[in-house]
């Protein structure tokens, strides 16, 4: 087998007493798009910093195409394009100046750099705006400059931290389409952190992170299919009581998540009439749906995704 693009082995990070990463292992093949999905505080930002060589892991190893981030940071940096959550382009410089400056930091020869910058501008539809100062661009456009900047150095691995922060839904979709294109056309490996479920859906594989551990890893469809079909969320006054009664009267195992009763079953829609018949006075509403990645998260952690970050 060829060398993995990214290989994490039992990665651990502690800040004093707080454990940010609690043994993360993950392998990403070249040309794969992998999303690290997790709520705030799940450890994904720490993982990002380690991969970007901005933080040394307490234990374990992280390799990019076989180069260790600790021992061989220089080689790692040369192979990697990094897009930070916070903009890292200079607002006082033009689009083109930003790209030229970044390429120069990587020691690219002037002629090579000129060619690459021109190609990147063309690629991201920025050619006509190349002389404009970045501070005057829209959020979506500025994000594209970030991506062009990360790639101008000839990166084989693209590392992105919450790439669609601050983008409207349209700009976000466009940005994700660019990532797919990069993978398809140039075989670039993409590793991104996100707390947006729809962003994770677009990845080849998703690693769900919770409290510093990878709780599951797989293709989005696979993860959802593993839940076994359908999900019901039942809003009632007393969720705990209903859960107990569902177990006794209908023989079904439900869970209480965030004040609601949650039922996973292969053909859950068939249970709806039985539920309403059995507890006509208690049920306020029933939501039915195919499992989403949110359901996968809930199933594995017992907490709702949105609530997990704050709890």
């Amino acid at each position: 087998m060829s060398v993995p693009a990214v290989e994490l082995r039992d990665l651990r990070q502690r800040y004093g007493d707080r454990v940010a990463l609690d043994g993360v292992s993950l392998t990403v093949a070249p040309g794969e798009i992998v999303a690290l999905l997790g709520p705030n505080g799940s450890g994904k930002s720490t993982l990002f910093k380690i991969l970007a060589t901005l933080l040394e892991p307490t234990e374990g190893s992280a390799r990019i195409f076989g180069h260790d981030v600790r021992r061989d940071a220089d080689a790692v940096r040369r192979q990697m394009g990094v897009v930070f959550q916070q903009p890292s382009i200079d607002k006082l410089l033009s689009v083109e100046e930003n790209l030229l400056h970044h390429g120069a930091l990587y020691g690219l020869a002037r002629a090579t750099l000129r060619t690459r910058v021109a190609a990147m501008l063309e690629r991201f539809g920025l050619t006509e705006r190349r002389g404009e100062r970045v501070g005057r661009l829209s959020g979506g456009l500025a994000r594209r400059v970030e991506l062009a900047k990360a790639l101008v150095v000839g990166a084989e691995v693209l590392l992105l931290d919450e790439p669609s922060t601050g983008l409207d839904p349209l700009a976000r979709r466009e940005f994700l389409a660019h990532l797919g294109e990069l993978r398809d056309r140039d075989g670039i490996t993409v590793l991104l952190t996100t707390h947006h479920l729809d962003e994770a859906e677009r990845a080849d594989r998703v690693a769900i992170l919770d409290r510093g551990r990878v709780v599951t890893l797989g293709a989005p469809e696979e993860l959802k299919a593993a839940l076994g079909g359908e999900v019901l969320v039942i809003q009632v006054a007393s969720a705990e009581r209903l859960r107990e009664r569902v177990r006794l009267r209908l023989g079904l195992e439900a869970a209480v998540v965030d004040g609601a009763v949650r039922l996973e079953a292969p053909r859950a829609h068939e249970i709806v009439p039985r539920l309403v018949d059995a507890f006509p006075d208690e049920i306020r509403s029933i939501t039915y749906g195919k499992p989403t990645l949110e359901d996968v998260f809930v199933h594995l952690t017992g907490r709702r995704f949105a609530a997990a970050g704050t709890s």
Partner: protein
Amino acid sequence: MRAVGSLWWREILRFARQRSRVTGALVQPLLFWLLLGSGLSPSFRPPGAPAGLGYLAYLYPGILVLVLLFTAIFATISTVEDRQSGFLQGVLASPLARSGIVLGQALGGTTLAVGQGALLLALAPLAGLSLSLPGLLASVVVLALVGFALTSLGLVIAWRLQSTQGFHAIMNLILIPIWLLSGAFFPAGGVASPLAWVMRLDPLTYGLAALRRCLAFPSPMPAGELPGLALSLGVTVLFGAAMFGVAAATARRSAAA
């Protein structure tokens, strides 16, 4: 080296694109010099100065150094802003060594300092100084050495700061006093001996002495108690090298986030 050069060029572009910085860095010391110098001129006479050399002329080299100091302060603020805006992250994740980053920043700051200093040098005749060509060239070299040292000192501070909060305290406690005690404002000759000793320990005293001697070249310095030229240049070069070394070490240790 392309990387260092690019960082250097960026500092200059950024400066040129912030009009308030350009104006502030030039007009402020100029105003300071004219107001203070002409206000104090009647009552202040540097010891050992020939009659006719007013305070305006005495203060002139000090104002040149103040311009360098202001530029160093701007370099400091600029670096902290780069960290806050997120720009620095991209630089830190690049293969360029930390010392290379600091060198680019320091050279950028030094270039700006010398450029502004040179503009002020053009006003030397107003201070009653007639410069010889060798004296002028030597003065520019001294400006560069002192500018590099002060910018590096600013960077030592900048790489420790997470925000510009608290920067004013540092400025008032460190940067302004080293200027005030360098002999820019008053000569060491006329002060009580503990203060004279503090002035002798201030590395900037030597940069200023070198500048005074070069500006006066070829005539010997009127104010008698200045350190010699060789000593002054030596201390200034050491000061710059030491500050750069500390700044690079600070950058290496600095957390990236």
